[in-house]
């Protein structure tokens, strides 16, 4: 009988985690990237329309404030970059409410790093080197694969991801026995892309290899810059191994006005979808106004990476105590 007080991972996996952290620190130390720490609790939070937050009461006599648990350290780290930190990395916890499943725990560990002066391509080279280094002795990975989003999407589905066609997308869903897609996605291009990508493309990405998908459609740019040659795509990259999404990176948006506009748009979408209200990070806008150096950055889920390295089927197998035992 497995007892509730017991960790859900083996002691062996605890050791792997410690070793992984150590290898990451060696990797970045050798490249003179500075390890930093930023608050988990903050007055502001991301405005991502797809994320829910944990909030808590801060008793700051005489008043009470609401603080958010961070969904990612991105904003605080960008403030450090704007203040002149140079390239930085952080290993920290991030929190996303309502996310629980085989690949999700509401509290999880991120490795996030920013490289000042790097393009997205240079960052992708470094991601590949890091993943190859960390995999040594656990998993033999084939040569890293790189595809544009458009290339992999068209090759797998025959659909063009950059221009939305309700007729073509619906026909694809019907042909694949998923009539519900039409009710779920309606006329929202982004939703259709999420639906098709997560059902028909992602599960097959990176078989025994690191697979990088870049050039996401502009409607899925999130905090990435729009490509300066093609306004239909953004300079965003996602990485996968064995069909598991491991990380998301950008050639970072440095334009304060554009950032402010995206915040407002996202807040409007949240309102429309009855998502809990968030507080826009004015400090981030101020930092961008002062000047964020040109940089590229990525966040990688370390628990997921450990799942891949150990061949685990559930995230619980690599966590000491998943939320239901926490």
């Amino acid at each position: 009988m497995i007892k509730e007080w017991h960790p859900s991972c083996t002691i062996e996996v605890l050791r792997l985690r410690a070793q992984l952290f150590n290898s990451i620190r060696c990797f970045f130390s050798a490249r003179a990237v500075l390890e930093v720490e930023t608050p988990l609790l903050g007055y502001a939070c991301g405005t991502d329309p797809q994320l829910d937050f944990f909030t808590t009461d801060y008793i700051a006599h005489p008043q009470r404030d609401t603080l958010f648990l961070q969904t990612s350290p991105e904003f605080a780290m960008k403030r450090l970059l704007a203040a002149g930190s140079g390239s930085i990395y952080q290993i920290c916890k991030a929190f996303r409410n309502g996310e629980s499943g085989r690949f999700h725990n509401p509290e999880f560990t991120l490795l996030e790093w920013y490289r000042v002066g790097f393009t997205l391509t240079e960052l992708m080279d470094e991601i590949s080197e890091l993943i190859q280094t960390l995999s040594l002795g656990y998993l033999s990975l084939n040569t890293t694969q790189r595809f544009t989003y458009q290339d992999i999407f068209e090759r797998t589905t025959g659909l063009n991801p950059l221009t939305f066609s309700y007729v073509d997308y619906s026909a694809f869903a019907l042909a694949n026995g998923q009539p519900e897609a039409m009710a779920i996605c309606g006329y929202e291009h982004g939703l259709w892309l999420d639906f098709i990508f997560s059902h028909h493309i992602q599960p097959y990405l990176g078989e025994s290899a690191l697979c990088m998908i870049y050039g996401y459609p502009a409607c899925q740019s999130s905090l990435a810059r729009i490509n300066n040659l093609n306004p239909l795509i953004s300079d965003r990259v996602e990485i996968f191994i064995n069909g598991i999404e491991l990380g998301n990176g950008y050639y970072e948006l440095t334009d304060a006005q554009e950032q402010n506009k995206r915040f407002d748009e996202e807040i409007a979408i949240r309102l429309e979808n009855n998502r809990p209200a968030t507080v826009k990070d004015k400090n981030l806008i101020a930092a961008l106004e002062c000047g964020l150096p040109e940089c590229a950055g990525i966040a990688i889920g370390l628990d997921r990476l450990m799942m891949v390295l150990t061949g685990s089927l559930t995230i619980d197998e690599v966590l000491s105590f998943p939320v239901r035992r926490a």
Partner: protein
Amino acid sequence: MAIYSTNEFKSGLKIMLDNDPCAIIENEFVKPGKGQAFNRVKIRNLKTGRVIERTFKSGESLEGADVVDVEMQYLYNDGEFRHFMVPDTFEQYQCEEKLVGEASKWLKDQDNCTITLWNDAPLSVTPINFVELAIVETDPGVRGDTSGGGGKPAKLETGAVVRVPLFVQQGEVIKVDTRTGEYISRVKE
């Protein structure tokens, strides 16, 4: 009936989908880091037995189905309906032959089975895992054969045909696993 949201879709939960009662088999939370969350759900239609996959937007909900499993005793077959009774209450239910389906070949008078009721009407019949039935017809055994290798077909009192070892004789009672239709052992009367 209660309403269930995708995060409550646990294996075994009975819900209504497209006006049919269904049971959740598996529920997987799928969410791209920066995208919409979905639940990919494997569902068994309890009327047809068919298993389908359906995707929901996380947070969507479905109405629960009033489906319960009740232990009953099989009484008799009147040619049109099979009749069952709840032993505690003596409440009787009749069940069309087509609903009984595969279970019919394991049903012996007085034996227990599980009836799945939807809004108090029989939906399906599941025999108990192990039944004991007499062999009404099989070829004579080969003397000296005590192994289980090979085997021969044997017709049972309910009409089912199972493979039995060569040494098992007509008239003997055997134990059969109804889930696989496999012979388990002889039963000493």
